[in-house]
């Protein structure tokens, strides 16, 4: 069965993670994604670690694409690009503001060639303002967007998330939302449009629920280790075997079940803990009681008890445990992907399931320029 974006062609001029991950998601929905690189290759080739000589970032951000090389500084190749753009539906770029215009492929030019184009530009901090000319990557946007300030041990001033991709892919994901909206609108109006998005704004959007605390109080929501301001109990507890269990009581019906699971029925009707706002207020009284309880038995016991009572819980998992966890396998959250260049790799599965238009399968992209001849031939371009 064809995917949802069957027949949609993406001209992907993007680099590193933000743009490429967006076009990867569109490719996994069935779009024909053509990744266009300069002869030198894009930035991500140079970021370690490599697998069989190819950068993991390049491999990982470029599934479900074909790879071509064009030297857009040469008039002949720019003419090829324009010819391809006539027959494309989506254009994605995330160079520094101004750079794509210097290549002669700004929105004005591309929308002239193809008024139906959905044209997307992603920048780090915006196309106007004092930081417009600055490049940004996941860690700089983490540092600048307030993102680190809610994370860390109690008393810390906030720490970075050492998975330096979440804010990249968050931006990618919001690009995909926008592209889908624009494609939908285009079906009705026949017109393409221009879309801009910034990593900074996307990061703030992702922090909506935590920034809400700041807007309400004008105070910094403090880092609380594994705990959080607004919900109690919602944190990790140390168990007898020195392992941690994480739990979250996130609706009122879960509280009695939680108390039963840890055999602390006496807490159910304790007025200090009757509702979440009460538990937040009496956190200092409640948490020591719970800590003592969890310390009395090993983590395996608490997993059994909490799961039986339908209370959200998990151990702190690592990749080796996760990779073959039945939940992960059965839902294909992580899948094995065979590739001609890098062997069999464990990779991220697609994030959605569609009953009529299945997404995926996840397929390897290629090496730089691997599909140039094939793609240009399809466009009827002789080289």
């Amino acid at each position, binding site marked *: 069965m064809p995917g949802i974006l069957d027949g949609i062609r993406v001209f992907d001029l993007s680099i590193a993670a933000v743009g490429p991950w967006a076009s990867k998601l569109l490719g996994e929905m069935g779009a024909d994604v053509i990744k266009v690189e300069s002869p030198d290759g894009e930035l991500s080739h140079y970021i370690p670690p490599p697998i069989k000589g190819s950068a*993991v970032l390049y491999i990982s951000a470029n599934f479900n694409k074909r790879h071509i090389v064009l030297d857009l500084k040469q008039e002949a190749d720019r003419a090829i690009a324009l010819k391809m753009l006539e027959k494309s539906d989506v254009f994605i770029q995330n160079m520094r503001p101004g750079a794509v215009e210097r290549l002669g492929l700004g929105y004005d030019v591309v929308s002239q060639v193809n008024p139906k184009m959905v044209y997307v530009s992603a920048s780090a901090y915006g196309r106007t303002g004092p930081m417009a000319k600055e490049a*940004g990557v996941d860690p700089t946007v983490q540092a600048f*967007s307030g993102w680190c300030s809610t994370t860390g041990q109690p008393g810390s001033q906030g720490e970075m998330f050492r998975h330096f991709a979440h804010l990249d892919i968050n931006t990618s994901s919001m690009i995909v939302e926008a592209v889908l909206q624009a494609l939908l609108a285009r079906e009705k109006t026949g017109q393409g449009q221009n879309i801009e998005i910034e990593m900074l704004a996307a990061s703030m959007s992702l922090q909506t*629920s935590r920034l809400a605390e700041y807007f309400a109080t004008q105070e910094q929501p403090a880092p609380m*280790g594994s705990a959080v301001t607004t919900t109690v109990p919602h944190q990790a507890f140390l168990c007898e075997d020195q392992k941690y269990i*994480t739990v979250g009581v996130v*609706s009122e019906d879960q509280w009695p079940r939680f108390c039963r699971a840890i055999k602390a029925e006496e807490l159910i009707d304790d007025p200090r803990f009757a509702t979440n*706002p009460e538990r937040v207020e009496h956190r200092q009284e409640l948490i020591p009681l719970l800590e003592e309880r969890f310390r009395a038995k090993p983590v395996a016991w608490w997993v059994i008890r909490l799961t039986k009572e339908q209370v959200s819980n998990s151990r702190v998992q690592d990749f080796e445990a996760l990779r073959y966890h039945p939940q992960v396998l059965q839902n294909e959250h992580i899948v094995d992907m065979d590739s001609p260049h890098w062997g069999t790799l464990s990779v991220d599965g697609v994030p959605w399931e*569609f009953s009529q238009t299945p997404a995926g399968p996840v397929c390897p992209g290629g090496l730089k320029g691997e599909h140039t001849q094939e793609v240009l031939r399809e466009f009827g371009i002789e080289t």
Partner: protein
Amino acid sequence: MPGALSDYRIVDLTQGLCGPFGSMRLGDAGAEIVKIEPLDGDASRTMGPPFIGDESAVFLSLNRNKKSLGLDIHTAEGQEIVRRLVTRADVVLEDFGAGEAEKLGLGYADLQVLNPKLIYCAVSAFGEKGPLSNLPGAELVIQAMADYTNSLGRIGEPPVRLGTDVASLSTGVFISQAVTAGLFHRLRKGEGQRVSVSMLGTLLHMRGIMWTSMTDPDDWYGFHLDSYTKPPDEGYKTKDGYVFFSLRRGSSEDWDRLLISLGMEESLADPRFDGFGREVTGVGRYVAEVKPIWEKAFATKTNDEIVHLIHEFQGDAVPFTNYMSLFQQPQVQELDVVREIEHPTAGTFETIGPVWRFSDTPAAVQSPPPTLGQHTDEILLGLGYSSDDIERLRVTSIIG
């Protein structure tokens, strides 16, 4: 022009953070949303303090653009009201857990009969198959399950969660994608369908580069793999704050001049500083161990001076912000993403508005978040219930 989804109606049965964030984004794009809440309200209404008036700040931040219908969906009449709404809707969102919607007569098969072109979006915590398909989700729990906490904190110390509600809100973005994609397909091919996303699936997707890195790396080297063993990075202390910087470009001559201008001549001979500082700036492998050397040089300079200096050497440098300093940044003011919303009872509050900039179909805040059951009468009258019906349903605790 209105937003891209302005012709569509959504019936939203989800609660908490994930589903409501997804539907709010669809509302930003113009969709009309009926939020069905249990009679005691969406669970996030009691998430807090902080409260603004009687409303949870978290709830307010996730529920603009919606009308609230208070309804006991565990009653036959309540289910009938949902079915009537669905008959004239385009999209249904639910997060009951595997098999639960079917028990309520609100599964895809039940509703598709009433509305064959329906887009039915099911949201789950761990995924719809497997041993955990019925276990409720919670932000920290999904983060811990997805290996997120292993890139935070310090080995041997208690786990640290990511402060941002990523498992919930990133899933909300995938909800918005799945629904819009479903509507796109329906517009082109005339076919409805069932779509689903999960919180665990979301985080495992977004961490995919880690799985690939760990499959068969040529060496255990590079910032993805280092992330498991590195200590926390809290930025570089300066005279008046903290900065973060990365300096991977430029020539060796530039790099030498930078170190000299900072009085760090001794580091010129330090092999860790080779390669234009690739491994001692940004997320390089020696960043933690050489941080005191940088901080000694930064101690007499302000954040602004350091940022300016690094820019001079073609690097990236930014102040390390918290929520207070974030909104003082001119660039953040330039982006203009904060919106003031007037709520019927809580008064005016601030929140993050839509962040896409569309030239033709702009997204916008449509209406304030509702009080519980604010639109119950209006919605039921629209479905053809009489005032007497509504009175009876209220007295019998089916609506609220």
